[in-house]
């Protein structure tokens, strides 16, 4: 008798749970198929992945969230059946998956299971839906309110004003190296150049081709501005990636920097820094350079894809679980401030203001072209030579073009 009671109670609870899920409008009880996610590792992606796996708890589930995801995702999706049924990517990293043809167009799945997904979340390439975006990111100004007040300065809106403010802060003896930035040789340095070059109004390639065109007046202007900024940075700037730059900020050594929106939460919380630092940390909009009017920053989205070499059942499981995980069901008090979410119901938090300002200012998205990654690598390998004063800006730009051209020829983009 007791046993029957317990069993009945269990059924009742299950029924209540199902009803409430139904009431939410997002039935999520997938109990067959397989979902295996690979993606970068930061809080927003961890939340999405956790909810997707919870939703598909009845199916075969796995996730591999790591900073090295880019070196694993293509290899893990090339086999048949693919090891990963979904890769969480950004607008730079999706092109590698499209180039290798390892992700499938989602049009049929969206028609069948994704009626709730708002159109602005759908990433289309040549009319085919290739990914579903769930968050936005950008780099923008982060500044110390107290330091600017002490030096009697307005919040800068351009890099020219940043230079002037840095000079004043140094002259007043408040800080020796008031400017920060992720200028570590490699990916970070290339990203800073990409921002600055877009800000000068330059274009990376001849329209419609893979021929690089950065050795021009805008390229020189971008490099000169970067070099001018480094004069106000810690002399070790070429070893400072985003993590080290954030640490410098939390140590109270920096008053102005261009930083990722997704990292401002860490700078403004009460962990890892003194109250005078985190209480006075504020975010501004994107910075401009020169008079082109285009902000010197790039917009980024993070989104999920579905692998090509998997069964229809696995694709359906993966799609439904991730669609649920990036629906309003994800949003709660804990996840709300983790990112600038793209789904309905998102309420902007103070830490998100910079990214939203970057979007509002009409910033340019990071270019989604197949050969941008090759140029990024060439930039990361060569810019340090100029910043260290070993060669002229023109020579550095010529070196970058030559390194890119050799790589693009090998990859078949150039003949």
């Amino acid at each position, binding site marked *: 008798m007791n046993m029957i009671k317990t069993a009945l109670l269990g059924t009742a609870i299950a029924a209540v749970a199902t009803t409430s899920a139904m009431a939410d409008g997002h039935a999520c009880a997938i109990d067959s198929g397989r979902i295996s996610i690979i993606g970068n590792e930061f809080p927003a992606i961890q939340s999405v992945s956790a909810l997707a796996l919870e939703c598909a708890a009845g199916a075969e589930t796995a996730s591999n969230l790591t900073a090295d995801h*880019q*070196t694993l995702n*293509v290899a893990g999706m090339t086999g048949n059946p693919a090891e990963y049924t979904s890769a969480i990517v950004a607008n*730079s*990293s999706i*092109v*590698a998956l*499209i*180039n290798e*043809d390892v992700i499938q167009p989602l049009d049929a799945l969206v028609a069948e299971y994704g009626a709730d997904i708002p159109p*602005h*979340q*759908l*990433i*289309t390439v*040549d*009319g085919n839906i290739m990914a579903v*975006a769930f968050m*936005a990111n950008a780099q923008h100004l982060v500044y110390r309110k107290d330091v600017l007040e002490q030096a009697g300065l307005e919040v800068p809106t351009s890099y020219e004003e940043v230079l002037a403010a840095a000079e004043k802060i140094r002259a007043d003896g408040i800080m020796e190296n008031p400017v920060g930035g992720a200028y570590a*040789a490699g990916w970070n340095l290339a990203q800073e150049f990409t921002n600055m070059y877009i800000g000068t109004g330059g274009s990376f*390639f001849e329209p*419609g*081709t*893979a021929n690089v065109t950065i050795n021009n007046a805008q390229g020189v202007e971008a490099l000169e501005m970067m070099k001018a900024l480094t004069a106000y940075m*810690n*002399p*070790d700037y*070429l*070893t400072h*990636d985003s993590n080290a730059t954030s640490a410098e900020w939390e140590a109270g050594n920096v008053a102005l920097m261009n930083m990722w929106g997704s990292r401002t939460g860490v700078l403004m919380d009460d962990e890892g820094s003194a109250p005078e630092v985190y209480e006075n940390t504020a975010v501004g909009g994107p910075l401009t350079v020169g008079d082109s009017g285009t902000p010197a920053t790039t*917009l980024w*989205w993070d989104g999920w894809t579905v692998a090509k070499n998997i069964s229809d059942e696995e694709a359906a499981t993966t799609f439904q679980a991730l669609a649920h995980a990036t629906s309003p069901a994800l949003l709660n008090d804990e996840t709300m401030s983790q990112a600038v979410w*793209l789904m309905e119901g998102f309420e902007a938090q103070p830490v998100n203001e910079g990214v939203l300002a970057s*979007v509002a200012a009409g*910033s340019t*998205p990071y*270019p989604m*072209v*197949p*050969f941008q*990654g*090759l140029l*990024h*690598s060439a930039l990361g*390998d060569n810019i*340090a030579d100029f910043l*260290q004063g070993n060669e002229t800006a023109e*020579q550095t730009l010529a*070196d970058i073009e*030559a*390194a890119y*051209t*050799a*790589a693009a*020829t*090998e*990859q*078949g*983009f150039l*003949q």
Partner: protein
Amino acid sequence: MKHGSFFWFVLPSVILMILFIALPIVSVVTQSLYTQHEQVIVTVENCGPFGCTEAQSVDQEATQALRDAQPLGKFAGLDVYKDRNHLAITDVARAWENSDSFRGFWNTLMNLPFYGALSFTLTYTAIVTPMTILLGFAVAIAVNSVARSLRGPTIFFSLLPMIVTPLVGALILFWMVDARGILGTGLQWLANDPTLSVKASTPMMWIMLMVYGTWSSIPFAFIVYYAGLQTVNQDTLEAAMIDGASRWERIRYVVIPHLAPLTTFIALIQLMDNFRVFEPIISFQAQAHARSLSIAIFTDLGGETRLLSSAAATSVLTIVFVAILLSPVLVRTWRDFGTSK
């Protein structure tokens, strides 16, 4: 040994060597001779949360046909070896013609990625290998003369740099030489220059990398020499003492000749290891100041678009250079082997 039994005796190791050493090298060489097919590029409209933009994309269907026909890629022969990111034959030839001085030619050459990486790699190998052998020998002699009761702990202590994981060891040193670290501040005080920063100066960074390289491989030379010291003939040493040889003379005329074959062995291993210098550059975040051939391979494979052929070509060039470096030592070993028969 009969030829038959010799064959069966070595067969397992021959099979393993072919499987795990020869075949991967063959595959790398093959890879380096092929490049990606011509990619058919089309202009498409991409849309997302930030609106629509015109962009280029690879026409998968058109490219797929080429890939299916020749899955290895397009045969390029030695083109990858000759391009600017490797041997840069045409750039070097042009620089040779256009430079009015050797210095100008040298600067152009060092600006090419492969030769820049090669110059650091060779300098590193040329300095770290002899330093390791000399200091390893000195440590071995010192430990060997320590009282027996203290020898165990001393050996353990001397082996520590090898026990510490290379990445961790390098990271600790990296933080210590930071401008705010204990060694960095110490150097500023010594040089009386408060703006001195090891991480910002190329020569200082090279010295740092070489000091770390020597520090981390001394234990290897030490332990090999220490084992060798245990086999030195005590009678000969005593005879030398009776003849009035000083400690230095005993080391010079008895110990060093006895350990000569070990020096060849250590030199071989260290030349190979040092030529493939990699971890210190990563841990010291020194890519802006020093690039080695291994770092070049790593960046080729670590980018958003993997450059497999380029990485394979650099690997083959590394193997060729290691073979050239080792050839004097190998020839010598071969000759010794021939005469002792």
